[in-house]
């Protein structure tokens, strides 16, 4: 007689000496449904940002006093706002604003962060210490307050938003890149390459740079979500693109006054932010998991 016994609540993952389990786990699997949905959403978002008229042919600024505060329905999928503007059209056209700010801010942060992080990681002890402490100092400011300080100095607007968020998120990338640089510098393969007689520039270009920069795009995708979230917050506070620009955070702020009678004006643009950030996170984590499997 054979009996199956299971003890689900206990036990550690499969012991190491199970033949074949390790490699089998790492074999590529079809992406999970969540990843596919996230990818599809982001693709649609990209279309909305590049060619919004394909999804919403109307004018995002066109007010129509006859249809003020219409609830979502067949004529207006997302309803209309207090000026009778079509919320769907505004959300679609707002994608470009949010994405532009997010991508530009992330680009600023990644470019500066990677350069400074590499410098710190490759520099001698004193310079590294000085750079690392300045990353610490920069990240001591809560991101939103740092951005507000910047806006106080430079005034509100899209460019301010981009630079402020870029500077505030820069230390994160710089730290990761510095850590990765140190790791790669001390790695077995760099040491091995020294025994091949490789010169220092060759080591940096052939082995250190590619292995340090490799994981950065994945980080940037996840970071892009955070930047979009921060931009929406600042726009909500009135620090970003000024009305009547259809920026998601600003739309939400405008719609706030009509919350009791028309929830859709503020909630639907907010959901667009949530879905965008969530989709970017899902996709980023998916790439990260694949990356970790490949790189280490």
């Amino acid at each position, binding site marked *: 007689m054979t009996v199956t016994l299971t003890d*689900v*609540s*206990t*036990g*550690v*993952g499969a012991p190491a000496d199970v033949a074949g389990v390790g490699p089998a786990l790492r074999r590529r699997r079809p992406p999970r449904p969540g990843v596919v949905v996230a990818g599809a959403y982001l693709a649609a978002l990209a279309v909305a940002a590049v060619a919004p008229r394909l999804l919403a042919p109307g004018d995002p600024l066109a007010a129509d006093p006859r249809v003020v505060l219409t609830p979502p329905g067949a004529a207006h999928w997302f309803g209309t706002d207090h000026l009778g503007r079509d919320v769907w059209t505004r959300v679609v056209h707002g994608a470009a604003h949010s994405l532009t700010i997010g991508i530009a801010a992330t680009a600023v942060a990644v470019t500066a962060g990677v350069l400074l992080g590499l410098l710190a990681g490759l520099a001698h002890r004193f310079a590294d210490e000085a750079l690392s*402490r*300045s990353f*610490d*100092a*920069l990240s*001591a*400011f*809560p*991101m*939103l*307050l*740092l951005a*507000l*300080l*910047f*806006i*106080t*100095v*430079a005034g509100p607007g899209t460019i301010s938003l981009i630079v402020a968020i870029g500077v505030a998120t820069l230390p994160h990338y710089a730290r990761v890149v510095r850590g990765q640089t140190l790791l790669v510098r001390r790695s077995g393969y760099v040491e091995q390459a020294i025994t091949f007689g490789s010169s220092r520039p060759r080591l940096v270009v052939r082995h250190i740079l590619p292995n340090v920069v490799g994981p950065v795009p994945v980080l940037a995708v996840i970071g892009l*979500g955070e930047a979009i*979230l921060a931009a*929406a*917050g600042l726009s*909500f*506070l*009135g*620090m970003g693109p000024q009305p009547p620009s259809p920026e998601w*955070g600003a739309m*939400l*702020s405008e719609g*706030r006054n009509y*919350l*009791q009678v028309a*929830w859709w004006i*503020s*909630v639907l643009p*907010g*959901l667009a*932010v*949530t*879905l*965008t*950030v*969530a989709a970017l*996170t*899902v996709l980023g984590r998916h790439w990260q998991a694949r990356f970790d499997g490949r790189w280490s």
Partner: protein
Amino acid sequence: MAGSPLRPVLRRVGSGLVVLWAAATAAYLALLAAPGDTVDAIVGEGADTPQIRADIVAEWGLDRPAVVQYLDYLGRLVTGDLGRSYLLQRPVAEVIGEQLAPTLALALAAAGLGVLLAVTVAIGTAGDRRPWLRRASSGAELLLVSTPSFLIGIVLLSVLSFRFGLFPVAGAHGFGSLVLPAVTLALPIAGLLAQVLRDGLDRALDEPFVLTARARGVRERVVLLRHALRHASLPAVTLAGWLFGILLGGAVIVEQVFGRPGLGQVTLAAVTAKDMPVVLAVVTLSAAVYVAVNTAADLTYLLVDPRLRRS
């Protein structure tokens, strides 16, 4: 060997001070970088009279060499002098002091609630006991972390306050007015903290010491609480400083959504009116608290993990 156990403590406190100095300097540089001359930046959109300009020059020592100005600024910070708002015609410390209490109440309530939620959720969903619950919770956390806090606030407001009238719509009077803002601020924190904690728990549960603990016949709950949770709390502790930043930044937004008085409202008003002394003070103060919180977290780390006590 008397000094050796203190060495790691001193090192952490020392590096905290260095960061603090660098942060104060960065804030000072922002002032210098402002367009126009420093007097313009400090006046902001307040009344601009020759008398006020003279006061500013005197207070900031603008007629003296740059190095002296800078050292003077640091000296005033060390003594707790945050300067004077020429827009409000009041010392900045007074302005901030008045509005500190509601923001502090909000931040502490949110932090407590967030941590409590995160720990409960992480413990309930760690390991592979209930995969469906785990998936559901991961999904919820992802959405919470991805949602702007003002959206959470607005949804809560429109459902619980406008529709059902359970909580006041605005203000900071009594416990009832604290609930929705605190929940709004706590939810994204709980989402992220729960992810970090569960990751830590999962990693700890894969460690060999968990296998040996189980092999001793220890209950699963005890394995989680006594062994795994302490290990999982270590990475979470390092997030304390970051958590604080989110609380402060979030407070600005949440106070705006719920029309709650507090530091956030002061800051926003100052940013809009370009009241530089107030903005600088808020930013520098929050950096100082961040460094203090982070240093405390590092020291806690030292307390929890005996391996780090070796110098």
